[in-house]
């Protein structure tokens, strides 16, 4: 399989970006790379590499490392075993991790959902006797740590969590314990300095907040846009101090220094408008890549959108698209298209692409296929992928990972 040639196209930098090299426009490859065959690997376990994985009923840890915690421990610090509740969170979808490891690799926070009434997603609500305002389920974040025998609940109505390097945990908590059919599940942003501490309220208002990642002492969150499933990416500089990072956007990743957020800004209707690098402390746009520039190289089959979560490692930013994976080169302080990999899927798109192993070449992701899930590992340098056998979605382990970056000193 031929190596996908790096594509260098014009980059655009934001008005607040420091002076940099002149923008250049170099010739691009004629088409993006398509994976023409996918090796099948028996059993999903054979495909998964180091890290913690959470299915609806179980936490499994494979290998000695906890991915994105940056540590290799001599023995797994996160305990394998049954979850305290069904680890599936209907309100979050796939843009927020199902589970997040603590920064020291010893703890794990996972989202769960306890149905308050049995319901069948394939049937009409009315035919099941479920009417607007009826409670459907209670979300709860559970934390598994080496100090506790049992997983500890952060409380009814809690969802989306992130640890910082000091051991503090941020999360959202609903003003009511349960989600009620056809009603907005408004919640507040809370931070506990430790699992045992009382929470501090960071958001002045209850709204559709989701916690994403710490950037130093700042907290990246999303705020839902009314009448839409879209969100604005926001940042809390502290309790009660929130401002916008990017409107109608999805967080792709935070750089290793914990200073720059990469976001995919969406069109008002549908599709991506641009990829943007934003300095979190100042809110300044450091670089932009208009989506039409991405598609300049792929005129025959343009990409419609890119979205998070992705990962940023070694000057390579990987994200998922409507057709597979897109990687951008950030080594020059801007955004250059590196590779657009089309991955033939039975249906749907790839979810939660994450680099595995060392370097920025092997990407692990997964996709829904009917009632099952298939795990993919794609090697970017050879434009090849391996895929597991389908696993019933409830038994499939979603990776635990953190969008928080604490390696550097964030301003």
């Amino acid at each position, binding site marked *: 399989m031929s190596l996908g040639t790096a594509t260098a196209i014009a980059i655009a930098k934001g008005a607040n970006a420091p002076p940099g090299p002149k923008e250049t426009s170099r010739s691009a490859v004629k088409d993006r790379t398509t994976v023409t065959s996918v090796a099948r690997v028996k059993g999903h376990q054979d495909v998964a590499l180091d890290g913690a994985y959470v299915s609806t009923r179980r936490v499994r840890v494979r290998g000695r490392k906890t991915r994105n915690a940056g540590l290799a421990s001599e023995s797994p610090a996160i305990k394998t075993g049954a979850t305290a509740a069904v680890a*599936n969170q*209907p*309100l979050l*979808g*796939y*843009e927020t991790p199902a589970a997040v490891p603590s920064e020291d690799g010893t703890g794990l926070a996972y989202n769960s*959902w306890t149905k308050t009434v049995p*319901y069948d*997603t*394939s*049937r*009409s*609500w*009315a*035919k099941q006797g479920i009417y*607007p305002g009826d409670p459907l389920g209670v979300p709860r974040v559970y934390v598994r740590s080496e100090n506790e025998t049992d997983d500890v609940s952060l409380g009814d109505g809690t969802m989306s969590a992130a640890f910082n390097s000091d051991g503090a945990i941020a999360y959202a908590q609903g003003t009511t314990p349960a*989600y009620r*059919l*056809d009603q907005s599940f408004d919640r507040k942003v809370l931070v506990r300095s430790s699992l045992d501490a009382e929470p501090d309220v960071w958001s002045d208002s209850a709204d559709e907040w989701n916690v994403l990642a710490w950037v130093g002492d700042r907290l990246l969150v999303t705020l839902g*846009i*009314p*009448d*839409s*499933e*879209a*969100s604005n990416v926001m940042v809390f500089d502290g309790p009660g101090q929130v401002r916008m990072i990017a409107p109608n956007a*999805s967080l792709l990743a935070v750089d290793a220094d914990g200073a720059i957020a990469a976001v995919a800004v969406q*069109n*008002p*209707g*549908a*599709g991506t*408008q641009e990829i943007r690098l934003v300095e979190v402390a100042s809110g300044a746009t450091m670089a932009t890549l208009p989506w039409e520039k991405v598609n300049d190289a792929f005129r025959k089959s343009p990409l*419609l*959108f890119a*979205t998070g979560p992705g990962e940023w490692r070694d000057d390579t930013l990987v994200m998922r698209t*409507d057709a597979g994976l897109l990687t951008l080169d950030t080594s020059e302080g801007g955004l250059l298209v590196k590779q657009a990999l089309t991955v033939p899927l039975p*249906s*749907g*798109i790839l979810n939660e692409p994450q680099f595995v192993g060392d370097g920025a070449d092997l990407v692990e992701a997964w*996709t*829904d296929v*009917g*009632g099952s899930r298939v795990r993919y590992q794609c090697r970017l340098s050879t434009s090849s992928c391996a895929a597991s056998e389908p696993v019933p*979605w409830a038994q499939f382990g979603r990776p635990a990972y953190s969008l928080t970056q604490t390696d550097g000193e964030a301003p």
Partner: protein
Amino acid sequence: MKSRLHCLRLWKAAASASVAVLLTSSPAWAGMNFKYDRDSRIHGTLHARYLNQYGQYTGTEGTQRAGSGSTTDACQKNYGWIPDGWYNLKSPGHIHHFAGSAIQGRIWRLSDKACHTGVLRTELFIHTEETSSNGQSCPTGGDDPFCWEGENDYYSNGCIKLSHGGGMPYMNSLWDSWDGRHDFYAYDKLYVAG
């Protein structure tokens, strides 16, 4: 009894007549529901189906092209096409001048719906791209939210989208004729297939 039978015959005759006739002579108790065929992201078909007083489909319908989603994975919040199955109309139901943040104008607001993996899709509508006064606002020349620029506007974040100039006025007119109710809640008013 005779007069009831006579009325029933008249109603049945009206039900089998053309849409143009029905627009001016629909019985008060008639209603309609929708069926959406997810043939593709931007070439789906929205059917408006005329119902009898028992809520049964009469066989009379109007259809328009519609679109939904940016990917065919219904479990992708903000990107996936609308999940299959039955939907209620959620308050405010159908209104002409919705003044929302992301969506305005003529809308049918749909109930929340879980996809097959349980992910809850919310904020779902049947709508077009227009202003709250049913006009157009096209300030940038790019993709404006209340401006129907063209074919690409059939893509959505999950909602069912009708064109501003054709699909929406057609469906709105059928609703006003066959049902006529605004600002109300109703069960099982949309079925999504495919």
